[in-house]
């Protein structure tokens, strides 16, 4: 801590920070452009000038850039000094020389940092009368719109895109007054974090291209605090609604998870909510015809299906809220509550839970702060995208230690980068195929899942000889003999299987172990990506071995969907068992909750299941193959239309709230309640609000007791008032529904939360879990998050939202024992593994046009040597057969795939329901 004097008044600030950071943390309004809380300072824009004085006697002082000056003890500065004020105003005027005069047609207008800063500095009259510099705009893909004339050359975009996110295909071109920020030619931006340019750029150069098609000003949108549903990380988002349509998604700051950035799948995957294929009314299928039915009739019909059934089977969903899954479980009973997931996936999820309960878990913020990382089996960029961005920052931790020694403050971004040069901290990537993080990896290892697991086991053993499983062995023989056997069993001694990259397994394990052991905050990342239990166990073993060596090691595991862990915690049983029950019993009714079974299980099994059930009830957002077979379909609310709780990959329960208020669509738990009440189960009528469901959930599952604390209950009020979902500038309120009634109807009630569907309510800052949008007086852009944080880039006031369900254990857990055997490639057969695509592998986002455009065509990939051996060429039509189904796609040559391994893009339609990894022949078809 240091004491600094701002305009004569003393303040306590963090001495490790710069003056701009300090002033903003103190709540002063000091304009800035090139500085960004996550990117640090470069002093490029000269906007943050303040006067600094040497001593109280010094009346003259000198102008300094606040962002480039340390907040050192005793520093005396003035923000209000007339010379500083005039300087800042002059800087804006200079920027405005070439800036267009057309905020009204600019998409940034109303949430523009440049507008805010212009108003803040008081520059209000243009004196420049000469021609302005103009540029050509580029096509940058379906997500990011480019309007280069609006650029003020702050360089934030290149710094984010290249330095922070590791993108290559974007840069600054030209010199002097003609700097151009774009690609070398038109084309889709390659980075999956490109969408963050919308928020990073302080002007309207980069804006949301999807939003453009249904444009609405920020002040006109109705927002809600929400959670991204497109992977298991649970990034916080702020969806905006207008006229009943979801208009866009922006980042909602969360200090422990997403920070200031989202991935493009999360930002642009929202359009499925507005899809033509949405189910908007209850439907009934009779004589092969699907017809809409009135709500009440559908509910009664559903009630009859339930009441007349011998057995009711409920299939829960990992993309439905905890509350909806719980409602289903209560309705059908624990014995008949299943997941739309295979035995394999559920086993892996339970293993994940077991590991999370017994191992210290890293949040994304912790990932960023880790100084040595081992990734086992996870293609992070495609499976848990936002984590990849955090990993890119983790490799800066060791260079930081070095630059700390040189006394370069960490926020002095380019000095730090200059000093660190290409030096990167340890990041080891052991994956099946190449990943987009390989460019920052210290070392990469490619192998079959079992080989990756063995590498993990070998690392653990190198760290702690006991880790190989000696303590638990009861077999005879001398200790020395056991050690030798264990070492052999684990490392396979000698070279990895032929065809794997020529890395010496044993020395590699040693190098990894050394790096992790030498680090202060080592981290191991794994997950369900390669669908292998041994990999997960190996990851846990490495962390445990490190813990035993006294290291504060942590683990981060990626899970497939937004509520995979929540569903597993509710004790859902695998789909295969549901199939068995359906086969055994006749006269069953099956309820499918937000599940396209055809994506979860082999088509033939799903057919059998659907045929053997007597009645089928589906609740879902969009028409799909499963809803097409259902007799009765209920329109289930999406994340944007409902409230609920999701459990993310670190076991954090987070609440999401409703932004849209559609008429006929309601939460799945409400439909289930209505149907079961109609079936005579009166007890469910006690569930009136979300809090009622959470209350029963908590009493039923003591494990999940903290779910109730994920966000304040609906009864929460701020000074007696609700929290407005709409900005106070919200327009058109009285005219919006004039087509229905010229007397302005009362806004819908919200019994489920303490937010109101109105601009009225308490204007103060709500608790962190209930912040619908970022806005503060004079700060209309995303930069307003500054005003919501305890410290800039730190936690939100009152703590980051959500609760961790698992507490870090006091001591290291037991080692897992069963290291897998060496992977043996087979003659004429391939182990087919899943390959993921950030755009394309996730079920809901792929229904958004932009994501669809960027998703891959189906393919079957293998190594070039293999292909040659089998006489195959790229683009040949090939076929593989798994689980009784055959899949046909063009061959793709991927030199990065190990010998004996083939890969297919999961999630794309053709491969829906395929159960991987599995062995198959791959043959050419004509």
């Amino acid at each position: 801590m240091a004491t600094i004097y701002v305009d004569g008044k003393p303040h306590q600030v963090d001495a490790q920070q710069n003056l701009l950071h300090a002033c903003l943390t103190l709540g002063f309004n000091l304009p800035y452009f090139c500085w960004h809380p996550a990117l640090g300072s470069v002093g490029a824009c000269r906007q943050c000038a303040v006067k600094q004085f040497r001593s109280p006697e010094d009346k003259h002082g000198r102008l300094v850039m606040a962002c480039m000056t340390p907040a050192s003890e005793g520093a005396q500065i003035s923000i209000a000094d007339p010379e500083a004020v005039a300087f800042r105003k002059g800087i804006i005027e200079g920027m405005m020389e070439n800036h267009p005069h057309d905020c009204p047609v600019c998409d940034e207008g109303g949430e523009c940092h440049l507008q805010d800063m212009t108003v803040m500095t008081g520059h209000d009259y243009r004196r420049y009368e000469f021609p302005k510099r103009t540029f050509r705009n580029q096509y940058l893909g379906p997500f990011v719109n480019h309007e280069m004339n609006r650029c003020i050359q702050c360089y934030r975009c290149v710094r984010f895109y290249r330095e922070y996110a590791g993108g290559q295909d974007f840069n600054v071109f030209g010199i002097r007054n003609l700097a151009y920020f774009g690609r070398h030619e038109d084309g889709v931006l390659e980075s999956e974090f490109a969408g963050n340019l919308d928020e990073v750029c302080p002007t309207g150069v980069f804006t949301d291209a999807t939003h453009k098609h249904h444009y609405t000003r920020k002040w006109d949108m109705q927002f809600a605090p929400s959670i991204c549903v497109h992977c298991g990380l649970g990034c916080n988002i702020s969806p905006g609604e207008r006229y009943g349509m979801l208009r866009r998604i922006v980042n909602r700051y969360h200090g422990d998870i997403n920070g200031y950035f989202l991935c493009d799948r999360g930002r642009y995957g929202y359009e499925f909510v507005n899809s033509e294929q949405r189910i908007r009314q209850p439907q009934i299928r009779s004589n092969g015809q699907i017809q809409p039915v009135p709500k009440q009739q559908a509910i009664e019909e559903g009630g009859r299906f339930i009441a007349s059934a011998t057995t009711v089977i409920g299939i829960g969903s990992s993309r439905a809220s905890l509350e909806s899954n719980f409602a289903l479980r209560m309705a059908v009973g624990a014995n008949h509550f299943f997941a739309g997931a295979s035995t394999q996936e559920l086993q892996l999820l339970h293993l994940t839970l077991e590991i999370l309960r017994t191992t210290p878990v890293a949040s994304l913020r912790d990932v960023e702060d880790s100084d040595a990382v081992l990734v086992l089996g996870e293609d992070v960029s495609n499976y848990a995208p936002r984590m990849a961005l955090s990993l890119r920052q983790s490799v800066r931790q060791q260079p930081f230690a070095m630059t700390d020694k040189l006394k370069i403050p960490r926020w002095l971004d380019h000095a730090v980068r200059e000093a660190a040069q290409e030096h990167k901290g340890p990041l080891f990537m052991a994956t099946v195929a190449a990943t987009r993080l390989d460019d920052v990896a210290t070392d990469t290892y490619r192998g079959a899942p079992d080989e990756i697991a063995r590498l993990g086991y070998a690392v653990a053993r190198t760290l702690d000889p006991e880790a190989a499983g000696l303590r638990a062995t009861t077999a005879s023989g001398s200790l020395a003999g056991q050690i030798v056997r264990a070492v052999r069993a684990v490392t396979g001694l000698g070279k990895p299987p032929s065809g794997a990259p020529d890395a010496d397994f044993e020395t590699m394990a040693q190098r990894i172990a050394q790096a992790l052991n030498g680090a202060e905050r080592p981290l191991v990342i794994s997950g369900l990506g390669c669908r292998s239990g041994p990999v997960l166990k190996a990851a846990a073993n490495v962390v445990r071995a490190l813990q035993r060596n006294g290291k504060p090691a942590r683990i981060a595991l990626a899970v497939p969907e937004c509520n995979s862990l929540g569903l597993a915690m509710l004790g859902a049983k695998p789909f295969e068992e549901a199939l068995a029950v359906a086969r055994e019993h006749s006269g069953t009714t099956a309820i499918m909750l937000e599940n396209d079974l055809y994506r979860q299980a082999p088509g033939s099994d799903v057919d059998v299941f659907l045929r053997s059930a007597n009645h089928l009830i589906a609740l879902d957002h969009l028409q799909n193959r499963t809803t097409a077979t259902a007799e009765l379909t209920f329109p289930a609310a999406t994340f944007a239309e409902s409230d609920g709780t999701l459990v993310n990959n670190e076991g954090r329960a987070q609440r999401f709230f409703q932004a849209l208020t559609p008429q006929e669509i309601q939460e799945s738990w409400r439909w289930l309640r209505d149907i079961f009440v109609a079936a005579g189960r009166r007890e469910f009528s006690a569930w009136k609000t979300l809090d009622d469901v959470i209350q029963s959930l908590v009493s039923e599952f003591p494990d999940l007791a903290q779910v109730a604390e994920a966000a304040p209950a609906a009864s929460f009020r701020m000074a007696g008032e609700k929290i407005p979902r709409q900005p106070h500038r919200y327009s058109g309120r009285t005219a919006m529904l004039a087509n229905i009634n010229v007397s302005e109807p009362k806004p819908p009630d919200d019994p489920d939360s303490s937010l109101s569907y109105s601009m009225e309510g308490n204007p103060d800052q709500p608790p962190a879990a209930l912040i619908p949008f970022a806005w503060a007086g004079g700060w209309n852009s995303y930069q307003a998050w500054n005003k919501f944080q305890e410290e800039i880039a730190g936690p939100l006031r009152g703590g980051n939202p959500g609760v961790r369900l698992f507490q870090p254990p006091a001591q290291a857990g037991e080692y897992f024992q069963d290291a897998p055997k060496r992977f043996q490639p087979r003659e004429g057969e391939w182990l087919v593994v899943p390959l993921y695509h950030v755009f394309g592998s996730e079920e809901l986002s792929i229904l958004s046009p932009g994501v669809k455009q960027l998703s891959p065509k189906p393919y079957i990939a293998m190594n070039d040597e293999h292909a040659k051996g089998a006489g195959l060429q790229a683009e040949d039509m090939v076929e593989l057969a798994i689980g009784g189904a055959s899949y046909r796609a063009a061959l793709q040559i991927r030199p990065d795939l190990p010998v004996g391994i083939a890969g297919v893009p999961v999630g794309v339609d053709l491969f829906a329901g395929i159960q991987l990894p599995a062995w198959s022949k791959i043959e050419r078809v004509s």
Partner: protein
Amino acid sequence: MPTILKDIAAIAKGMSITFMEMFQPTVVENYPDGPGPLRGAKFQERYRGVHVLQRDENGLEKCVACFLCAAACPSNCIYIEAAENTEENRVSGAERYAKVYNIDYNRCIFCGYCVEACPTDAITHGHGFELATFNASSLVYRKEQMLAPIPAHIGANAVFNQAEVLGGAPAQVAPGE
């Protein structure tokens, strides 16, 4: 006695003004029985009546759907839906145009803030004023009711504010007709 004289004098004075005024020309407007399309109504230039959505010299709509008028409106009675101009369907000169533009005259207080806010001078107050109706829902005016017609003669000399002359809602003429 003197009191009676005083009273008579007072009455005579009053009546003299009355009789004098009887022979003055009429100053009250003879609305609605006057001549011409306005039936005797006369306006100051600054009179704020029903809005007119203007067109530019090419006949394109001036409104670029920036939502500023809606934001400025103190009674929140302006409803806008934006859409993108395309090569085939160009409605305004900028990127977007107002696909739907409604003003709810049940609410409008004719304050002129929208006119002041408009960066393109697209929305102006016309002189239309006969708004009374038995059905409140017909007071929600659509864009088509407020839009200036495409001038017959497009160019510098075109008469734009025909709507003002006609006193209200002109017939919609589709672009290109």
